[in-house]
């Protein structure tokens, strides 16, 4: 008879998982996606911030044991991800939401989460069913347990993905852009859930929105071109731009010295640069300014992000 799962290895202590990443590297063909990435986390919410293509998703996929890095080490509760037995043990402590989450359209929400609970080794019904119901409740979908996936909006599908990631109170929760498709009220709910979750688990979240990173994380790492270019608090990131943010009343001419510049709603122009543009007055830096100082202006022409990403 085909069994459902292998016997569970002995679990470590409950509570937040400790994560240590050392010298992580990953390539796709000749293209480096991650280079010498190192950081640690134990409890709380950690945000990975960076532009598209910075390597956030690749890093999260490596942490979630979906991709094998080419070099470096990842330890979760002392377990070495390179060892097959340890990978399985890590997966027992893991909840993961990939960047693109989907489910079979004709399945109900309960069926989807229950199926994933089985593959995650969450025991037999009815306890497993209780965990499924709890997970749906956490994201406000308990009253839609019988709804088919194809009837859901994009935001509800995203919440379904978050629900399965929270099954069984995992010690390590990895969420790749969880706020995608959520309306403002749902984003607030997500921030609340993540904040509470961080008290019992280690949560690693990726986002490309600075205000989101500041709202729900205690620590954030900024990635750019596969490397961590900043590690610290949101306040520290803003402070990076101290003395480098300027306001002018006239448009700022494009220059390799200007990291980013844009027109503000009040008709003035804000610029991030090492030196003041003509007529520039020093302004108080924000988190976004610090972020742009680190990752902006790579194209070197007025820091137009669409030109930069072309």
């Amino acid at each position, binding site marked *: 008879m085909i069994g459902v799962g292998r016997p569970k290895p002995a679990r470590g202590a409950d509570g937040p998982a400790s994560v240590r990443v050392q010298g992580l590297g990953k390539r796709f063909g000749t293209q480096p996606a991650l280079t010498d990435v190192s950081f640690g986390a134990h409890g709380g919410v950690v945000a990975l911030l960076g532009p598209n293509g910075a390597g956030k998703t690749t890093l999260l996929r490596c942490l979630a044991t979906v991709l094998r890095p080419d070099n470096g080490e990842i330890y979760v509760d002392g377990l070495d991800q390179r060892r097959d037995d340890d990978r399985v043990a890590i997966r027992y402590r893991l909840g993961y939401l990939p960047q693109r989450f989907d489910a079979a359209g004709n399945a109900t929400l309960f*069926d989807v989460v229950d199926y994933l609970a089985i593959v995650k080794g969450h025991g037999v019904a009815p306890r497993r069913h209780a965990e499924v119901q709890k997970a749906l409740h956490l994201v406000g979908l308990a009253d839609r347990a019988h709804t088919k996936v194809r009837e859901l909006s994009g935001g509800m599908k995203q919440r379904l993905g978050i629900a399965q990631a929270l099954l069984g109170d995992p010690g390590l929760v990895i969420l790749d852009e969880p706020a995608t498709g959520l309306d403002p009220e749902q984003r607030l709910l997500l921030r609340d859930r993540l904040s509470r979750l961080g008290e019992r688990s280690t949560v690693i979240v990726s986002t490309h929105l600075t205000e989101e990173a500041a709202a729900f994380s205690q620590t954030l790492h900024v990635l750019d071109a596969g490397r961590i270019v900043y590690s610290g608090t949101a306040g520290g990131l803003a402070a990076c731009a101290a003395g480098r943010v300027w306001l002018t009343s006239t448009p700022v001419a494009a220059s390799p010295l200007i990291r980013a510049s844009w027109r503000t709603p009040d008709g003035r122009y804000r610029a991030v640069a090492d030196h003041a543009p003509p007529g520039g007055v020093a302004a108080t830096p924000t988190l976004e300014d610090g972020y742009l100082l680190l990752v902006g202006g790579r194209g070197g022409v007025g820091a137009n992000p669409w030109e930069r990403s072309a």
Partner: protein
Amino acid sequence: MSGPIPGPINPDPTSPGPIPADVLARYVSGDAPEGEAIRVEQTLSRDPWARRQLHDAALPVLESDRIDLAWFGVQAEIDLPRRGWFERLVVRLGLPADVARLMAATPTLRRAWYLSILGALVIGVAAASPDRTDGGSEVLFLTLVALIPIVGVALAYGPGVDPSHEVTVASAMSGLRLVLVRAAAVLGVSIGFGLLGALLIQRREGWMAVAWVLPSFGLSMVCLALTTFVRPKVAAWIVGLTWFVAATTIGNRAVDPLVLFRPWGQAALFVVGMGALALVVARRRTFDEAGTA
């Protein structure tokens, strides 16, 4: 108990309560030494603030989690969705409900695939003219019926066919185990449909009804082995097309058009299938990873 009433267990006036947090934690977990536990209980008996401290710090966290989960369990059992027909059938056949749920989630077991099976069977049965005695029409029927599980197994698991593939890869269940559970489901359904088609053509040779089973198994395993190198849809195309061309070509040119479906042919394809299965097991790690981004 006689003797002077002991002083507060925690004489520190700046503490949040009369009992230190570490002492309270040991007491709640049952690890406090006897003397310490007695002092805690004496403090609890005379100090309402200490009782409040115990209530706030420990019991609600433990009890509310258990109570919440019990309530969710009740909700889940009351509102449990009715299992689909496939799951009910699998459970009735004696398999555990968990396995039935895994099988039912197989991407291939959907209406589109069932319709494809019916289409292939209609073509095969229509081609199996009772007036032909050279075996040519049986070759077409057997070739098409054997093709069905190949496609089904190849599309039962993997990126591009399973919408929750990445989450499944990151789960604790062995990818190989899940693949084999799904392959068993697909093969089971295929055999059912295939036998139905075989009964419809009603040949004198009874073995015709099952002549495609072993070749189908062997080729399904080859397809599964190939998915450890290429994407499932590519593997299905390669094996399916190769099989169709080879079987029909042999059927048209060989002295015995049914050579692939005679006992020796079936045995050879079965051995090939077992070899492919061994390769699948050897490369099982590929089912636990998502490959490149």
